[in-house]
């Protein structure tokens, strides 16, 4: 079964930089940004975008619902 291809979109201003998504990502996709958002939080981003499988683990544990997840349906 080919590796699922996924991607996440983080609402940068909504993210509070809590890092709970980062530690729960099974494929080490997520890192915390160098820059900060409007509130001064380092926000989550896809540090290794190719690793993402779109498994939604990050999104379901995000207390602020800041992550949207996409996954390409494999034929």
């Amino acid at each position: 079964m080919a590796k699922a291809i996924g991607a996440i979109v983080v609402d940068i201003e909504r993210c509070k930089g809590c890092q709970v998504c980062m530690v729960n990502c099974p494929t080490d996709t997520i890192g915390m940004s160098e820059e900060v958002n409007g509130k001064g939080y380092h926000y989550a981003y896809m540090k290794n975008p190719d690793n993402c499988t779109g498994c939604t683990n990050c999104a379901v544990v995000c207390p602020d619902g800041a992550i949207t997840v996409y996954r390409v349906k494999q034929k």
Partner: protein
Amino acid sequence: MEFKEITREENLVYKRTPLMTDATLSYCPGCGHGTVHRLIMEVVEEMGIQEDTIGIAPVGCSVLAYDFMDVDFSQAAHGRAPAVATAIKRLWPEKFVFTYQGDGDLAAIGTAETIHACNRGENITIFFVNNGIYGMTGGQMAPTTLEGMKSSTSPYGRNSETMGPPYKITELIAQLDGTHYVTRQAVHKPGPVRKAKKAIRKALELQKENKGLSFIEFVSNCNSGWKMTPNDSNIWMEENMFPFYQMGDIKVDGKLVKG
């Protein structure tokens, strides 16, 4: 594959439910409240019952729950949410009524209301977020603060001799005939989150079938009160809170779960 390609609309697999408002959550970074809010709203959306759902907010960190959950809400005096919910459900039996309460609200000042709503078997759902501390007021000791756990009013650690031990109100109300479904969940990891969502769904379905009171305790973190980072607090919670507040179903179909 290009990012633009992957993130096309038809590839969407998860987005925050529209039943959560756009308001920035007042909760500290990494606090479980936001997750519990979202799961409840996801279930309300999936069951299509937004138009018949009435929430009762407590006094505590989640006093502003009505700014985040897009359903009709009543904000109850500290500890009184189960009484508020009782009256609403009695007068509007076809509505879905839930309370959303913290440990101070439900297990300290509101103990009597909790016990008696459960004992009467009101057809409501109680969502109880136990983070072992009074968060809103700045981290004081709560009825669920563990032995030896520091707080602003137990700065040298809770001492059961002088302050009494923590107690498990969830096991207590499970003994009452009026409670039908009683379970303890968590929302700090994907696995527990998915289980917690099933529990929420089950509770609200049971309410539809008038089976009696459903009660879900979410053991959660309070990184500000515990003075830890979010991830450390979740680890600490697993190592310290979970042994005392054990995960899983305590009562199903009105019968205590053995073991």
